[in-house]
C-alpha cells in the first residue's frame, strides 16, 4: 500500500512538474519560449505607400531595438509583414492571413482608417489584440471595443477640438469660420469643434461642408468672406486645402489667420508650392500631432536612428508616426509578464500612460478609452520658415461626444 501511495505520489508530482514546466504560451498563438510573433501591415505599395512604408519600418526598427536589449522576458520579437494597399478589402484579407495562417499573437497595423476599421469585426470575433499603426481610426476607437487600440496621432475629433481651441485661445478668434468635408472625417472634426466653440462662448459665423472631391471652392469661400470672420479654420484634404488657400488670397482675406488641419498639409513645402501664392501664407498656421517640427531636435533623434537601420532610404514625413504604437506594444508586453496571454496583453494596454517622445501629448489608454493621443501643436508657416507656436492643445474627450 505504501509503495502504491509512493508511486501515485511520484506520478502526481511528475505531472505537476510537467504542468509547471510546459511553456505558459502552449495554448497562446504566436508565443513561444524564444519569441513573440507580431503581424505588421501597412500600405507598402500603391499611391498611399507614403503613409505606411516608413511608419511600418519605424515600428520594425523599434522592435529590433528592443531585441538588441534582450527582448521582452527573454523573448525576441519577430514580425510578419503584409501590404494592405490602404484598401479595406485587402486589410481584412491580410489580417485574416496573419491571424489564421501565420498565427500571430497580435496585429500592429493600419495607416488608413477605413482599412483598419474594416478589420474590427474579425479581430473582435477572434479576440485578437489589434493595435493600429498610424491610422486616425475614429470609427475603430469610438465606441471603444476591447481588442482595438489606435489613434496614436490623434483622431479627427481631436483635430477638430484642438484646432478650434487654438483659434480661440492663441489667435483670439471671436468670429470663427469653419470648413469641413461632408464625410465621416468632417463630421468628427465639426462635432468637437462646434462643442469647443460653444464651451468657450465663441460664435461660429460660417460653417461650410464641402465634398472631398470639390474642384471649385468659389461659392463656399464667397459665403465665408461675406460672413466676415476673424479666423478661418479648414480641415480639408490636401487638394481642396490648396484651393481654399488660393481663394483666401485671391479674395483678399489674408489679414485674418488661416489655420489648416494636419490632413491638408502632409508636406508643407509641397503645399506651399501648390498654393503658388506667397500672400496666402503670410498669416498661415497648420496643425501637427508631433512634439516638434519635423526637423526639430526631438524628431531628429528618431530620424538619425532610422538612418542607421535603413541607410539607403530617406525617411518620409510620416516615419515617426509608426513609433508610438510599437512602444505601446512592447510596454504592454512587458507589463503583461512572462505568462503573457492576449487577454493579459489587452489588460496591460489599458494601463498605459506614457510620453512616447514623438507625439505632442501623452499616449493614454484605459478601460473605455481606445484613442491614444488627444494632443496637437500648431506651427506658423510662411512658405519657408516653420515656427512652433507655444502650447500643446488637448481634447478633453467630452466635447462633442
Amino acid at each position: 500500500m505504501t509503495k502504491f501511495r509512493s508511486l501515485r505520489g511520484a506520478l502526481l508530482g511528475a505531472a505537476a512538474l510537467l504542468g509547471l514546466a510546459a511553456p505558459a504560451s502552449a495554448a497562446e498563438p504566436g508565443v513561444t519560449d524564444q519569441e513573440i510573433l507580431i503581424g505588421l501591415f501597412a500600405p507598402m505599395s500603391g499611391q498611399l505607400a507614403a503613409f505606411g512604408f516608413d511608419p511600418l519600418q519605424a515600428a520594425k526598427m523599434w522592435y529590433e531595438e528592443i531585441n538588441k536589449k534582450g527582448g521582452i522576458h527573454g523573448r525576441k520579437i519577430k514580425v510578419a509583414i503584409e501590404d494592405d494597399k490602404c484598401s479595406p478589402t485587402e486589410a481584412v484579407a491580410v489580417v485574416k492571413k496573419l491571424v489564421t495562417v501565420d498565427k500571430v499573437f497580435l496585429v500592429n497595423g493600419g495607416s488608413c482608417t477605413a482599412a483598419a476599421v474594416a478589420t474590427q469585426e474579425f479581430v473582435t470575433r477572434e479576440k485578437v489584440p489589434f493595435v493600429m499603426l498610424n491610422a486616425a481610426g475614429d470609427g475603430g476607437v469610438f465606441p471603444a471595443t476591447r481588442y482595438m487600440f489606435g489613434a496614436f496621432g490623434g483622431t479627427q475629433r481631436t483635430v477638430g477640438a484642438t484646432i478650434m481651441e487654438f483659434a480661440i485661445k492663441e489667435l483670439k478668434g471671436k468670429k470663427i469660420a469653419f470648413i469641413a468635408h461632408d464625410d465621416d472625417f468632417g463630421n468628427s472634426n465639426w462635432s468637437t469643434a462646434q462643442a469647443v466653440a460653444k464651451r468657450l462662448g465663441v460664435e461660429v459665423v460660417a460653417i461650410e461642408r464641402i465634398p472631398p472631391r470639390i474642384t471649385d471652392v468659389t461659392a463656399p469661400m464667397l459665403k465665408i468672406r461675406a460672413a466676415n470672420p476673424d479666423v478661418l479654420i479648414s480641415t480639408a484634404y490636401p487638394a481642396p486645402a490648396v484651393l481654399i488657400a488660393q481663394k483666401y488670397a485671391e479674395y483678399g482675406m489674408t489679414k485674418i489667420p488661416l489655420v489648416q488641419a494636419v490632413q491638408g498639409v502632409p508636406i508643407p513645402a509641397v503645399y506651399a508650392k501648390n498654393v503658388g501664392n506667397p500672400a496666402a501664407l503670410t498669416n498661415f498656421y497648420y496643425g501637427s500631432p508631433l512634439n516638434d517640427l519635423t526637423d526639430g531636435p526631438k524628431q531628429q533623434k528618431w530620424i538619425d536612428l532610422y538612418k542607421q537601420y535603413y541607410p539607403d532610404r530617406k525617411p518620409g514625413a510620416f516615419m515617426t508616426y509608426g513609433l508610438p504604437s510599437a512602444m505601446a506594444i512592447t510596454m504592454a508586453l512587458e507589463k503583461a509578464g512572462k505568462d503573457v496571454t492576449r487577454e493579459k496583453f489587452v489588460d496591460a494596454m489599458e494601463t498605459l500612460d506614457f510620453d512616447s517622445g514623438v507625439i505632442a501629448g501623452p499616449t493614454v489608454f484605459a478601460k473605455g478609452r481606445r484613442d491614444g493621443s488627444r494632443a496637437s501643436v500648431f506651427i506658423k508657416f510662411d512658405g519657408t520658415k516653420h515656427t512652433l507656436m507655444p502650447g500643446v492643445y488637448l481634447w478633453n474627450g467630452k466635447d462633442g461626444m
Partner: protein
Amino acid sequence: MTLILQALASGVVTGCVYSLIALSLVIVYKSTDVINFAGGEIVMVGGYIGMFALLFLGIPYVLIFVFSALATFALGAAFDRVVLHKVLGRAVPGQSILVAMVIATVGLSYVLKGSARLVPYTEEVRRLPPLFTGEPIFLGSVILQPQDIAIVVIAVAVMLALWCFFAFTLTGKALRATSQNPRAAALVGIPVRTMRMTVWGIASALAAIAGILLAPKLLMTPDMGVIVILAFAAAIIGGFTSLPGCIVGGIVLGVIQNLVGLYVASNAISVAPFIVIMLILALRPQGLLGGRVVAKKV
C-alpha cells in the same frame, strides 16, 4: 449682388473649360457614335504632358499647348487606328458594335490612368504654374485673376478656331460629311478611315488644351480625369449632338454649380449637375440646343 456677380464670373471661367472637354466628347460622338469614356484621362495626360514640357524640357508656356495638343492628337489617332478600327473590323452584320467600342474607351481610360500612376512624379499632388500671375483684376466689385481671363480667352479662341476649321477648310468639311453620312462620304472619295482618326486626334488635342487650362486651378493627380463627369453633364445640358450646345451647356453648368453652392449648400455642388441632367432629360431630352431626333441615313 457682389456675391452673385462673383459666382457668375467664376462660373463662366470654369464653364469654359467644361465646354472644351464637352466639345471633345461630342465631336467623337457625332462622327463615330462612340461615347468616349477616356475623355477625362486624356485631359489628365494632356495636363501632365504640358507640365513635363514646361518644367523639364523648358518649352515656353505658350508653346506647351501646341506640344501637348500634338502629342495627344497622336495618342487619339493611334487609339482609333490600332484599337477601334480593329474592333470595328470584327463587326457582325446585324449586331451593334457600339458596346464593344465604348468598352474599348473604358479600357483606354484604365490604361492611361495606370500608366500615369507608374510615373513616380505623379505620386504627389502637383500644380501647373499659371500662365499669367499678377495683381487681381477688378471689374466693379468682381475679382478676377489674370489666369481666369487667360482661360476664357484661350477657350474662346480654340472654339472659334474649331468653328473656322469645320466651316472653311476642306478637311473640316470632309469631317462633317463623314459624320453625317459615312457611306456617301466614301462614295465621293473621302477617306473615311483617315477622317475618323483625325476626329479622334482633334478631340484628344481639345482635351489636352482643357487639361493645361485646368491644371493651375485644379491640381494634378492621376485621378483628375473624373472631371469628365461634369463634361458629360455639360454635353447633355447643351445637347449631345450640338457643338454650340456644348459651349452653352458648359457655361450654364459652371454657373449653376456656383449658384447652388451659394444659395443651397456647398455640399450640394457635386449633386447639382446630375439634378440638372435629370431635369433636362425629362423636359427637353435633346438638350438646350440639340436638334430633333431624326433617323440617320446610311
